[in-house]
């Protein structure tokens, strides 16, 4: 693959090889995660065992919080492929973290429909409230701020995802309150549909 000398690909491009994070520890699945992986692998035909790479990485992330250098080797052994194949996948998908993240990963959707309803302002306010720029983690390891692309719920713009949960229709002026509420109450502070009753769509 040829790359243009004037473009700085390192920052964003998913075709770029990211150096895996070496936390200096040897990773191994906890027994139930290992068992879970074998359960998942049964969904695919034997020749398709590599299909379980994505689920296997989610299991690593659930256990460790991010994907480390050693965990990629471990996944490769569990799946029966090369570590390069695993690394190829890790570096492509944005939901695999290659470094330790804050306790709350605050992801502001910045794509057009959300931006039309104030997402840029939300990011600004969160930057101020959290004291960090997008892609940074604060010094206490509480918050990581990120900007992400359309999350598939543009009718609830501006949309913010915190870890795997959603906060809908966040107005810029409420951004600071959200940060405070997250500190105080954790993910219970979020308004996402699935946090309310399972039958939210009444009104």
């Amino acid at each position, binding site marked *: 693959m040829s790359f243009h000398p004037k473009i700085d690909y390192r920052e*964003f491009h998913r075709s770029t090889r990211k150096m895996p994070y070496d936390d200096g520890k040897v990773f191994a699945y906890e027994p139930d995660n290992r068992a879970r992986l074998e359960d998942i692998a049964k969904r695919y035909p034997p020749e398709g065992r590599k299909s379980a790479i994505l689920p296997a990485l989610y299991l690593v992330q659930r256990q460790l919080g991010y994907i480390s250098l050693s965990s990629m080797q471990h996944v490769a052994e569990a799946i029966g492929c090369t570590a390069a194949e695993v690394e190829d996948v890790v570096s492509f998908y944005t939901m695999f973290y290659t470094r330790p993240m804050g306790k709350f990963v605050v992801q502001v959707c910045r794509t057009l429909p959300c931006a039309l309803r104030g997402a840029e302002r939300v990011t600004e306010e969160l930057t101020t409230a959290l004291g960090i720029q997008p892609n940074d983690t604060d010094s206490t390891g509480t918050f990581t701020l990120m900007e992400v692309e359309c999350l598939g719920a543009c009718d609830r713009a501006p949309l913010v995802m915190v870890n*795997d949960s959603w906060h809908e229709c966040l107005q810029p002026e409420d951004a600071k309150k959200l940060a405070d509420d997250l500190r105080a109450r954790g993910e219970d502070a979020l308004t996402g549909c699935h946090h309310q009753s399972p039958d939210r769509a009444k009104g």
Partner: protein
Amino acid sequence: MEPILTKFVREPHCYTLDFYLKHEGYQGLRTALGMKPNDVIELVKASGLKGRGGAGFPAGMKWQFVVKDTPKPKYIVCNADESEPGTFKDHLLMERNPHLLFEGCLIACHAIGAKVAYIYIRGEFLHVQHVLEQQLEDAYKKGYVGKNVMGLGWDCDIFIHRGAGAYEAGEETALLESLEGKRAQPRLKPPFPAIAGLYGAPTAVNNVETLSNVPSILLRGAEWYAALGPEKNGGPKLYCISGHVERPGVYEASMNITLRELIFNVAGGVRDGRPLKAVIPGGSSVPILLPDQLDIQASFDGVAKAGSLLGSAGIIVLDDTTCMVWLAENLLRFYRHESCGKCTPCREGTQWLLNILEKIERGEGEMKDLALLENVAGLIAGKTLCAFGDAAATPALTTLKNFRGEYEAHVREGRCTVPAPWRRRTAAAAHSH
């Protein structure tokens, strides 16, 4: 039109198997299993059901193309990646009506002779995935999925596979790559998935909404279905309306409805009664329509006739405070970020388009940059393995075509001439990627 796909979505427990069974649930499947697979395909062909994922390809035809005479297994893969900006209908369908999708998957499997369907759902929809998993487990337990479906001696499995953040994974061959545990990059076609798809076996990839349309066709027939909309654009359609409208949301209607009715009646018109500036009618990848172009059928053919595409029916409404250079810049940031990097024109071109647009929006543009934009966009469109390239070229081309004066004003005055209070107030940080 009485809603068909979303009739019950506001009712409590509408997503449960019990609720679904009380409303003719799995009866379309029962009908299908009493028919020969080929007759199911003919029925769906006769209904005229067009794919709802973006391309509008007839679903029955896609199933017919799947190679039947092969020792290999066959697969149905449901595209639940839903990542086209402005699109959020599959989200609602899966969260509130998951069994409709399961039933559609099973009927499709019967039609093409598959024993397995995979639902590839985007990673960010974890809460939706939880609903699917819970309901799928129930459907397995009560004999609607798995071994001996409904006691009729037919086996079929459905598995859910979670993506991990990649727009390109919505392109059908990239989706298959991703499902095989690789980077979501498109394949060279032909061979099409119908010949060599998942694990090299014949495969049909269908969108969530497409599959969710199938049960009603089996229940009420092709004629009934076709008559719901204009010619060749039958059935119910889900519209996602977002941006500067009073009531953003998912709305179900017949494709007889016009774009104007959708925006002004259904979604309550432009927010705060402001003037309408433009509309993107089919997700971020399609050409813009102007306010005087809205009295058209919001059908695949109607929107195409007006020079745009219905695409995924993501209708993004823009009021007079929207700067068109800013809009193109925003979308190019998206396309640059999501370009999978496989084809050079797209990987490199999206970055250059973004550079030029940022420069103009910052007020540092020159008149010759407008021609350069057109040039670079033209070097991407049609020159890539998948339709991502055309999509990425569109925002710059369509805004230039319709709002050239706005670009020129930016260059002349050396600043953004359409600032809006809802946009960023500080200069964009240098790291913004």
